[in-house]
């Protein structure tokens, strides 16, 4: 076990970006996952983050092909909560385990679990990865972009 990856929450509330959406072309916001990140534990660098979000969004717009990370995993986890998901790396593999206990829904009770495995590119470790849980149920795991400034 090389380590556990902590899910990163960058945005305080998604509603904050309402204006941003209004003045933007929706199509441009489609793959900017930061705009959908779930509110989470407030981080010390919150204000700095909002800056970088805007910057990266603009940058992505200008050169959508260049900023594309070489390894990215998108996973549909609508039925799970952030605390149900465990992300680990093990000997060059990325393991995503999601599990939730009996939960009531409209038709009774439901328990779900799944484990997904991806082969990581050579030399990629836990510290190089970043995970983002979006409120529309998409889990994004990608390689940290180096040198943001």
């Amino acid at each position, binding site marked *: 076990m090389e380590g556990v990856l902590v899910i990163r929450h960058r945005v305080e509330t*998604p*509603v904050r*970006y*309402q204006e941003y*959406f209004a003045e933007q072309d*929706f*199509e441009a*916001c*489609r*793959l900017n996952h930061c*705009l*959908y990140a779930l509110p989470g534990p407030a981080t010390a660098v919150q204000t700095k983050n909002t800056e970088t979000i805007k910057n990266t969004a603009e940058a992505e717009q200008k050169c959508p092909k260049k900023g594309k990370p070489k390894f*990215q*995993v*998108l*996973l*549909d*986890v*609508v*039925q*799970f909560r952030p605390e149900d998901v465990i992300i680990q790396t093990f000997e060059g593999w990325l393991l995503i385990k*999601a599990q939730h206990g*009996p939960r009531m*829904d*409209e*038709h*009774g*009770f*439901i*328990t*779900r*679990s*799944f*484990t*997904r*495995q*991806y*082969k990581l590119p050579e030399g990629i470790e836990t510290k190089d990865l970043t995970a983002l849980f979006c*409120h*529309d149920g*998409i889990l994004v795991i990608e390689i940290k972009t180096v040198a943001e400034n």
Partner: protein
Amino acid sequence: MAERTVPHAYPMSAEYEFANPSKIYDQNFGEGISPGDILTPTLYHGYYIRPRVNKQLDRGVSEVTLNHHKFQVFLDVCHFTPNEITVRTVDNLLEVTAQHPQKADRHGFISREFTRTYILPLDADPLLVKATVTHDGILSIEAPRTGKEVKAKVIDVKITCQEEPARQGGSSEEKSQS
């Protein structure tokens, strides 16, 4: 909305129908997404969400139909083969368990497991429950209903009254102590 013209056994209100829909969607899980599957964001309950291409309306559905003669359930189990699914009844609960070992799909390797529990009507005989899986991976479970009203066992519990403790003795004691 033709279903709404059917006489309703429950108070007809929008809240009731929203809280107890006969069909629930989005029951497939652990699906991988490719960036091309994500569509332009739309506003939903005050939040922008991104619809996905792979969210087909007729897949990943759990549907419960209940009439006078039978109780029927349709559940999408397209990720599982028939021998990976177990259906059993526990009292008046209907349990569907499915588990598949690690296998490759177009996004990588995945293993899945789920347990879904439905509540059978009281007049359905658990011995007569039938389950079939269609060729396109829909599990259909049928339980005939007898239509007999299940008599509720009513037993009155006798209430015994506790006698009020004698007040005067207590108060005089307190006085003597102070």
